[in-house]
């Protein structure tokens, strides 16, 4: 053993004499350098395209590395491996060296492995060079470009080391395979061409079909696709482990073939060799099968929701709610910006929301027995959430699910080929089938799959999506060919049979609701408001919790959108009693009362606030004047957009009997102070003292919100249109008794 190692070591030293002047290592160095160099040049000279304001702190080296990682691992690095393996084998093919080496005291293992080792050294140089120059290029970039304030400049040494090792291991399979080809095929051009065509083929095909996880180029690609590595605390991804197996197999194959000169002699010549070859093949296949099996997250007995909020602001309370029904599942106490709760009731799978301090919404997918940890960051008025825990495959699935272009929906939208209903329906079914089956194939970096409940639901949603498309198509047919009846084909009927009109698990999904209501109201030919039709249709359903929830949701929306007290009253009188669930019923009545309380002519609740000089000011100070209030916050994008229009109005109506107030609901008073200083003086800048009370009193569910109060301190309009809309000014002119604009 020791002798063999010495022998190998001698062979490697010999290879280093032989490769003198061939520039192998220099080539590796240059290949590592290319991408970072190009990138930094482009970045420096093309700043506009790249400069986006960023709110969250991030490591600048990691960011730039991730920008260029893909192009290195998918193209440059494999190309280098193809060239280097061929080149090193060529040194001996060209000069009759393979025979020469066999007449030296080198063992064949040493001969075969020594060259492989040289390639591995070249690989390491290329990876190191790439990482080194990507760090260097980042430093160079920020000599010329101003760095974002939130960027961190500490070198992520461990991360780089981890990437180095992963990339090295991921490259083993391709290296062993290409080396095998290069030794076997004595013509330089062919071994390079085969590798090159495989690479180009991979690049073209990989966006169209799923590439098997053992494919050497795919293994490399996944290092860049998942730069952070495993999500389940493994040092290596399973594909990287497969790389080791593949490399071992091809080294065995290549070495035996080389050493015994022919396939027959290498693998079938004697019983012993046959057994060895079968054994190695079996081990390879079984280890691959073992490594590539899919996993599912083990479920807990309890349902745990926890999280941490990184922010300068301290938060107090959060509610876990269902987004459609707004049913509160739990109230979460936040201590030191951390929360943790165990839910005992049974919860169906759905997208839920955590609302933190009535302002920050965090989306959350879970069901009973899940353990979810939300890592929330709230910095510079921007919110970022990352979810961990038992639903990570599902979260990854949702992230990866990009919208793909569909010829079918193009045809329907543009009314193309609608004269051939059978063909459109067939296409619809085919496209649905593709997508439906694709839902089964998603896997995470560690080969975890989403759980069955999620996949089932996802499949239903895909079906709903296509049924909506079908309905859209049928409508168009009806309009374009009124006399031509469209007959549904069997496949489409089958599609329709998959979705029931009382599926409670889909109640949180907008697409399902629109499908449902389309189906419920399509026979209703009355010439009345669409909303009313829908709510009518729901109220005629058989009593069930499904109906309760649906009716609640629609009634709530209609009450919010109703434009008069009378309308609201009508809605409540006609439909509220149809909700048999007492909790939901109560909630509707409460909502109604809140809106009534905020109706025109009702006394406006007092608002206590502070101005920029830290003096207390209240709403009652302005009696005798109209008051228009813009409720906003510095972190709110739409508010910042409306603000200038609001100021424009304030300047225009400066001389009238009206006070413009911008009322901030910022948690961080300092932020408000800095921001408000810069605003127009014609708007009075105030900060609300008790944000919670303000929210409750005026039912503020979202901002910006504009409230108009009359001279007697009574509400005129508690939910004004936005200043960008013409009606905003029309309302102002009306109350100020100014003549209408032309």
């Amino acid at each position, binding site marked *: 053993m020791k002798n063999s190692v010495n022998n190998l070591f001698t062979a490697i030293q010999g290879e280093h*004499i032989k490769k003198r002047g061939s520039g192998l290592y220099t080539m590796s160095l240059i290949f590592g350098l290319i991408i970072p160099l190009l990138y930094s040049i482009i970045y420096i000279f093309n700043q506009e395209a790249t400069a986006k304001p960023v709110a969250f702190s991030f490591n600048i080296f990691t960011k730039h590395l991730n920008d260029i990682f893909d192009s290195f691992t998918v193209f440059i690095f494999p190309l280098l491996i193809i060239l280097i393996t061929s080149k090193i084998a060529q040194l001996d093919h060209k000069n009759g060296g393979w*025979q020469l080496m066999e007449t*030296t*005291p080198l063992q064949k293992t040493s001969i075969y492995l020594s060259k492989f080792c040289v390639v591995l050294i070249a690989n390491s140089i290329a990876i190191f060079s790439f990482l080194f120059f990507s760090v260097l290029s980042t430093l160079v970039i920020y000599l010329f470009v101003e760095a974002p304030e939130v960027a961190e400049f500490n070198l992520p040494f461990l991360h780089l080391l981890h990437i180095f090792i992963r990339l090295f291991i991921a490259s083993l399979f391709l290296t062993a395979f290409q080396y095998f080809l290069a030794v076997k095929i004595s013509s330089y051009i062919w071994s390079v061409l085969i590798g090159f065509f495989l690479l180009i083929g991979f690049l073209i095909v990989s966006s169209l079909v799923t590439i098997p996880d053992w494919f050497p180029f795919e293994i490399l690609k996944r290092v860049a696709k998942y730069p952070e590595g495993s999500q389940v605390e493994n040092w290596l991804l399973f594909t990287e482990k497969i790389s080791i197996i593949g490399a071992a197999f091809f080294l065995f194959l290549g070495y035996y073939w080389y050493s015994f000169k022919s396939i027959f002699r290498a693998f079938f010549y004697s019983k012993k060799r046959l057994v060895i070859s079968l054994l190695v093949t079996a081990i390879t296949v079984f280890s691959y099968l073992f490594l590539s099996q899919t996993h599912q997250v083990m479920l807990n007995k309890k349902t745990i929701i926890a999280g941490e909020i990184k922010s300068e602001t301290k938060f107090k309370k959060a509610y876990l709610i269902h987004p459609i029904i707004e049913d509160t599942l739990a109230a979460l106490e936040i201590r030191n910006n951390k929360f943790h709760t165990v839910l005992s009731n049974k919860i169906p799978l759905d997208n839920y929301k955590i609302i933190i301090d009535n302002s920050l919404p965090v989306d959350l997918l879970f069901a009973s027995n899940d353990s979810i940890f939300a890592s929330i960051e709230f910095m510079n008025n921007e919110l970022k959430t990352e979810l961990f825990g038992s639903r990570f495959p599902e979260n990854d699935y949702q992230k990866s699910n990009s919208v793909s272009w569909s010829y079918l929906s193009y045809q329907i939208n543009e009314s193309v080929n609608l004269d051939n209903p059978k063909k459109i329906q067939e296409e619809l079914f085919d496209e649905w089938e593709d997508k439906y089956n694709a839902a089964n194939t998603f896997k995470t970096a560690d080969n975890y799959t989403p759980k069955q409940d999620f996949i089932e639901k996802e499949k239903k949603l895909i079906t709903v999506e296509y049924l909506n498309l079908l309905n859209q198509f049928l409508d168009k047919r009806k309009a374009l060919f009124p006399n031509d009846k469209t007959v549904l084909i069997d496949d489409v009927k089958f599609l329709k049979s998959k979705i029931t009109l009382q599926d409670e698990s889909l109640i949180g999904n907008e697409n399902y609701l629109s499908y449902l209501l389309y189906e419920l109201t399509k026979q209703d030919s009355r010439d009345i408001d669409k909303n009313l039709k829908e709510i009518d249709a729901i109220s005629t359903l058989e009593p069930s919790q499904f109906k309760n929830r649906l009716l609640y949701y629609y009634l709530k929306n209609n009450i919010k959108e109703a434009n008069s007290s009378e309308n609201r009253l009508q809605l409540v009188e006609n439909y509220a009693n149809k909700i048999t669930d007492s909790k939901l019923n109560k909630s509707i009545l409460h909502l109604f009362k809140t809106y009534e309380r905020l109706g025109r002519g009702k006394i406006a609740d007092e608002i206590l606030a502070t101005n920029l000089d830290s003096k207390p000011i209240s709403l009652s100070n302005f009696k005798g004047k109209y008051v228009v209030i813009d409720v906003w916050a510095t972190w709110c994008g739409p508010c910042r957009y409306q603000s200038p229009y609001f100021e424009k109005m304030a300047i225009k109506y400066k001389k009238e009997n009206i006070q413009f107030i911008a009322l901030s609901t910022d948690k961080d008073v300092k932020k408000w102070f800095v921001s408000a200083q810069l605003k127009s003086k014609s708007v009075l800048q105030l900060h609300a003292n008790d944000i919670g009370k303000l929210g409750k009193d005026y039912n503020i569910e979202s901002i910006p919100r504009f409230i108009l109060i009359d001279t007697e301190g009574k509400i005129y309009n508690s939910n004004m249109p936005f200043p960008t809309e013409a009606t905003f000014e029309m309302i102002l002119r009306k109350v100020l008794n100014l003549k209408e604009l032309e």
Partner: protein
Amino acid sequence: MNLGFFLTFTYINTFKMENIIQTSNLNFHYSKHKSIIENLSINVPKGSIYGFLGPNGAGKSTTMRLLTGIIPDDKNAIKIFGSELNEQIPFIFSKIGALVESPALYLHLSGYNNLLYIAKVKNINPDKIDEVLELVELTYAKNQKAKQYSLGMKQRLAIAMALLGEPELLFLDEPVNGLDPNGIVEIRKLLIKINKEKGVTIFVSSHLLSEIEKMCTHIGIIAKGKLKFEGTMNQLSTSFNTCKIEITIDNASDWQKKLNENGVKTQLNEANKIAVLLNTKEEIPTFIKKLINEGALLYEVKILEGLEEWFMNLIEN
């Protein structure tokens, strides 16, 4: 055990030990019907220069590759240094220098670096490199790339690579191939020198008898994969003791007829040249005297090298 048996036993043993290469019924074929090497049994004594002769395609290179293990011999028919070759691969090559299918050189490297590579893998002190360079007279070109070498220089460098590290046994496949006459003489001298001074056994192949007959102590002749002759140079000379001469003479065809009538074997080579077969060399003066006496106008008398013709005969049949 009686003494006679003991002596015989010792004799056989030493005889066996003396053979540095020994094959017994070595066979090789690419396909079942086409045999390349057939029942080849050769014996190369220690300290000899063994000339392995045969026309192109006779199986010389294949034999050479079998002897160096480049082509594996599964029947274990080859013994080198007294034991089976297969057991000794690859470490046996620290005692063997081989030049198979010349020239296996790294053309992108300098002459010196080519030798440095061999020194590295054979674990030889690099100081020896200058010695062999001196020996093959390449010192002046040692830092030049091998691709700039002439054919002769490449050949000499390849020989230097085989010589490096003072091997006990040297395999040289057509070492003088492509060399000019001067070069051939130089190589010949060199090989004799290292054979004499260092006792290196040399196994050298060639397709031209004249190239190597002057230096070999032993000869093996192969044709169509079969060994036709094996023995020392002396055995070769004695087994072939007729003498053929060529005379240049006017009216050659007339003279040929006349000689034939007298029972002398002749052959008309050119218009004025006759080849005459005599029993021994010693018959030449009498034969010539007789011709002159009979009035022949003789211009030239030349001994045709008997060996060459015999060799041609041997390999053609």
